[in-house]
């Protein structure tokens, strides 16, 4: 008990007790003088103490296992620790540090003398050269070529001047359409006012040429289109909804990124939105088991248009 009392007394003395007498004031102060403010000092002490608590609380919260909302508590502790220190800084700014108003001159706008000296040094340094222009040109030529040579390995980053890959898709005549689980898509399972995603059987699904959307039109006809928007490469994920009811004003395939809207009843024609090219259509046939198969490749290149893309068929 006495130890605790000693500690408390020590703390009180530390907080409120008078410090050593300050050094005698100099006559030629640089920083302006100001009156002390013990109240503000006490506030700073309290804030530092609370910040210490918050910092310690962060460590405690971190150490606890299976604590609910741990992220929130951690953020609260460390955030508060910083904020308390920030408030202490503000008290120091406004109450404990003099606000001096200094008037300085802006630096010189320019140094004309030095400028001409630099010019002179550069000019005089080259005085032994007699054919400056040709030497400069030759030097620049060498440096430029070296720079070009240094950039050349960048061509290894990817295919060079070759867009052939962009036309390719894994679809070809007879390829079966399978759903996300890999099960063949049967024609009679495709219902109106709904929307199915299918992939080419056995192919890489992470190619832009793979995913297709399948819908049944009001005419009972089933059509399939590339699922990748011709505008900016997002997956067509909407069948009018939520910007319209699925069949209002008429069924349409919509990309959720920029709302390019395509008409499934009219070869993927653009109805609205920024896309500049129709959605490529995949011709379909129904095999003997009633499953959907591709009857060929897409009606146009799949995915976003690139500068130089040729309209017309995709390649297998």
């Amino acid at each position, binding site marked *: 008990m006495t130890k605790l009392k000693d500690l408390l007394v020590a703390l009180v003395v530390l907080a409120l007790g008078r410090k050593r007498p300050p050094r005698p004031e100099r006559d030629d102060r*640089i920083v302006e003088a100001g009156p002390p403010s013990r109240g503000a000092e006490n506030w700073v002490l309290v804030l530092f103490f609370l910040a210490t608590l918050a910092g310690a609380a962060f460590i405690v919260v*971190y150490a606890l296992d299976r604590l609910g909302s741990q*992220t*929130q508590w*951690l*953020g*609260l502790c460390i*955030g*508060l620790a*910083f*904020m308390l*220190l*920030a408030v202490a*800084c503000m008290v120091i*700014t406004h109450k404990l*540090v003099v606000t*001096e*108003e*200094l*008037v300085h*001159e*802006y*630096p010189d*706008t320019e140094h004309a003398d030095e400028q001409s000296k630099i010019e002179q040094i550069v000019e005089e340094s080259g005085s032994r050269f007699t054919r400056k222009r040709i030497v400069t040109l030759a030097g620049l030529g060498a440096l430029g070529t070296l720079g070009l040579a240094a950039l050349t390995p960048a061509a290894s*980053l*990817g*295919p060079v001047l070759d867009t052939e*890959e*962009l036309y390719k898709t894994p679809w070809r005549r007879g390829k079966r359409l399978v759903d996300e689980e890999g099960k063949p898509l049967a024609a009679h399972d495709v219902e109106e006012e709904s929307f199915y995603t299918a992939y080419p059987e056995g192919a890489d*699904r*992470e*190619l*832009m040429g793979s*995913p297709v959307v399948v819908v049944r039109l009001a005419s009972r006809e089933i059509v399939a289109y590339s*699922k*990748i928007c011709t*505008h*900016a*490469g*997002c*997956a067509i*994920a*909407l069948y009018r909804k939520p*910007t319209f009811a699925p069949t209002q004003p008429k069924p349409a395939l919509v990309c*959720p990124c*920029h*709302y390019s809207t395509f008409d499934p009843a009219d070869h993927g024609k653009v109805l*609205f*939105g*920024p*896309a*500049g*090219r129709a959605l490529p259509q995949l011709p379909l046939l129904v095999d003997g088991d009633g499953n959907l198969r591709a009857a060929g490749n897409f009606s146009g290149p799949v995915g*976003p*248009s*690139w*500068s*130089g*893309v040729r*309209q017309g068929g995709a390649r297998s």
Partner: protein
Amino acid sequence: MIRALVRYVDQRSGGAPFVRKALRYVFPDHWSFLLGEAALYCFMLLVATGVYLTFFFDDSRSTTVYHGSYKPLDGQSMSRAYESVVHLSWDVKAGLLMRQTHHWAANVFVAMIVLHLLRVFFTGAFRKPRDLTYLLGIGMLGLALIEGYAGYSLADDLLSGMGLAIGYSVAISIPVIGAYLAQLIWDGPYPGSAAFWPRLYIAHVLIFPILIALLLTLHLVLVASRHHTQFKQSDKETERNVVGVPTFPGQTPRSLGLMLSVFGMLFLLGGLVQINPIWLWGPYHVGDGTNGAQPDWYLGWLIGALRLVPSFDVTIGHYTLVPNPFWGGALFPLVVFATLALWPWAERKLSGDRAFHNLLERPRDNPLRTAIGLAIVVWVFLVFMSGSADRVTVLFGLDYTQQIWAYRAIVVVVPFVVFFATRRVCRELLAGELVEAWREEAEAAPVD
């Protein structure tokens, strides 16, 4: 103690004269001068939290099956990149705090840069001799946008995948070189080869941060060597005299306080306010998309622009020359950035003012600049707003296509209205001040 330390450092560095000068360097005082500083502190916290995140992130798109503590994703096939971020968020102590704080800091970083830019623009702080400083700032804004985009793309969740698809589409839409350029970056058609992910990663954690740090250093060196601008608040502030508080002691606790409160606010946001819960979006696959996808706020102007442009490509015969995403995704930001970057020189041409300026102007003091600047701000803001038309449809039931048609008209007309209105208001304010000055002069004059 102090004497011994100062002597030790001076004897080894010879830095005493420089430090003495730096301690008494003058900072003019105005709240708006702190915006750039706040951006600097965001950058510092971004580096600190970002370094922590790199200890857990896996820059690979090879697939793995998830078996972590977030049960709804259990057994799902996903990339190692996405898995590592979900793991960091759910199974690493303080991982989610660091990740969310990093994300918040990125959002606030760009916001502070933009506010700082607006302050500098509308007060004419970019005029000679600070045009180069301004240009470095514009460069940093551009880098920060790309850096932020690269950052949230790395998580490889559904939203970031859709964002990358759009970025790729904008890249290949660049006339003539687009397809070649994009295939070099992605190493083939989207989503690219296995090499693409490490490239994106190293760009985000090394190349762009170093570029930003480099421009930042140059920016600060130029600011310090030309000293700060100031508002004319009394007779003491002139083009030749700078008035303010010294670095030490006056400015130091202010700046420290600002830094600590930026850190504190960002950690509070990171801990208490959820941002980008990638486990809800799920892993990305090329054939997947979701409705309601929105980028981080600072790319909102680009999604708006991409949505506003009407359906047309520039074609020659059967070939497309300029695909649609080029207009909104590349040309629009290019025009905005070029206008901002060239403005100091354009203004010099328009006004014929080639003098050095240390005193700031109030927006009204330069009606032409304020009018053009506000027109551009409103233009970009309206395009930004149009990017949320789909949310308005879902929330309030307003027809989407009608909204877009309305925006197409508004973004063309309203900036002009803003230009003329602003110029008029500035001129009226100035005229009003003149009248007021005359009145005071007349009242002060002795009555005979």
